[in-house]
């Protein structure tokens, strides 16, 4: 290939998909295109590899679903041990039930949760555990001694409002979860929004949360109507 062709190839390989790349590609003959297309496809795969799910703690959807571990809502190992004994559910059986519900856990995890601190257990999993050992999820949650200090000021401000507290109650009701877990989910969702780079003000955050709760309540009402 000539220097000019080399230069064109290099420019083409840098170009993202779209009409401009197609136009550049059209300048090459069939044989050259046949060699270039796999290289372009390989480059497109690199783009896809770079665009996957965000880190869990930055994912507002994960926060909403309660699958982001929350330092303010930690599984109480002793309470879990007692609940397992009271309900006669062995760790292996609990693990099997959780696996059947879609969770990726094994019996050694359950042993660990009972004997050591388990900051990696997200609120939604605590709820599932509580259901399996037939206890109110609030009784499986231990509050940390030290309040979390790195909460962003904005989310703190929002959390202190009456509207936020009302939304927590409504979210807990519609999702059939404890108030603590509802508060955790809504707070984590706010944090994830801020981590994602958006910086709405307190009013916008509350409006966004209210809209979410309205939507969920709408679904429940239509279910009840039906």
């Amino acid at each position: 290939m000539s220097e000019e062709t080399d230069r064109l190839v290099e420019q083409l390989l840098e170009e993202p998909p779209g009409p401009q790349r197609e136009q550049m590609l059209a300048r090459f003959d069939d044989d050259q295109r046949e060699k270039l297309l796999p290289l372009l496809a390989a480059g497109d795969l690199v783009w896809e590899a770079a665009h996957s799910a965000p880190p869990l703690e930055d994912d507002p959807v994960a926060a909403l679903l309660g699958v982001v571990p929350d330092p303010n809502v930690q599984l109480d190992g002793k309470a879990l041990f007692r609940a397992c004994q009271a309900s006669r559910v062995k760790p292996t059986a609990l693990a099997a039930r959780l696996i059947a519900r879609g969770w990726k856990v094994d019996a050694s995890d359950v042993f660990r949760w009972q004997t050591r601190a388990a900051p990696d257990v997200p609120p939604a999993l605590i709820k599932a555990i509580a259901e399996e050992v037939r206890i109110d999820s609030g009784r499986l949650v231990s509050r940390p001694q030290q309040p979390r200090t790195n909460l962003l000021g904005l989310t703190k401000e929002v959390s202190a409002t009456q509207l936020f507290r009302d939304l927590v109650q409504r979210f807990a009701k519609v999702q059939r979860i404890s108030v603590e877990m509802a508060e955790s989910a809504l707070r984590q969702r706010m944090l994830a929004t801020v981590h994602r780079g958006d910086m709405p003000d307190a009013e916008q955050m509350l409006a966004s949360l209210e809209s979410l709760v309205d939507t969920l309540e709408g679904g429940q009402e239509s279910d009840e109507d039906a």
Partner: protein
Amino acid sequence: MEPQQEVSAAATSTVPQDIGAVFLKHRDAMYGVAHAMLRTDRHHRAEDVISEVMVSILKNPPGSVRNWESFLVRAVQNKVRDLWRSSGYRHEQPVLAEGSPIEGDPLVGDHVEDDLALEVIEAIDRQQTVQKVREVMAELDAWDPQAAYVLWQCKGLERTSQQVADELEVSSSRVRQILSKALTRFRSLLEAKEVKL
């Protein structure tokens, strides 16, 4: 369109799956599909699509799902198309033929269902390929860290050769040369893993 309408009814396991658990398991595939579909769409964001899909599922949890990955991927694909239809957005690389069924279309035939099922399978296969890409990137990094870096920056993050050149304190033409070399090597590594390009 509600997600449960988007996947044909199927037999299911007896234990209902927790929505949070299935999201954790399949969020990579969901985001991957959304990002790929929205690559040339500057008006919609993958995060918002995923959020709408999951809120919709929370509102009306599906009764029976045989394959959650297919269900969620299909839901994402349909949500993106719904957004495109409602905003009149014309994407450059339509995934379906122009005659794709619209919501409530009574003329949805078996062949269209087959197309949609095939499309979901392809999307999932594509995500599995993307997993291999990450392995190959690690191999490329071991072979030539600078080439791997330039490839990731230019093709993964779509930084221009000039931006990368400024950072590396080399000329932009040098960055393009490195990119060309990296892509060639990357392609051969992919083919060694039987990734079809």
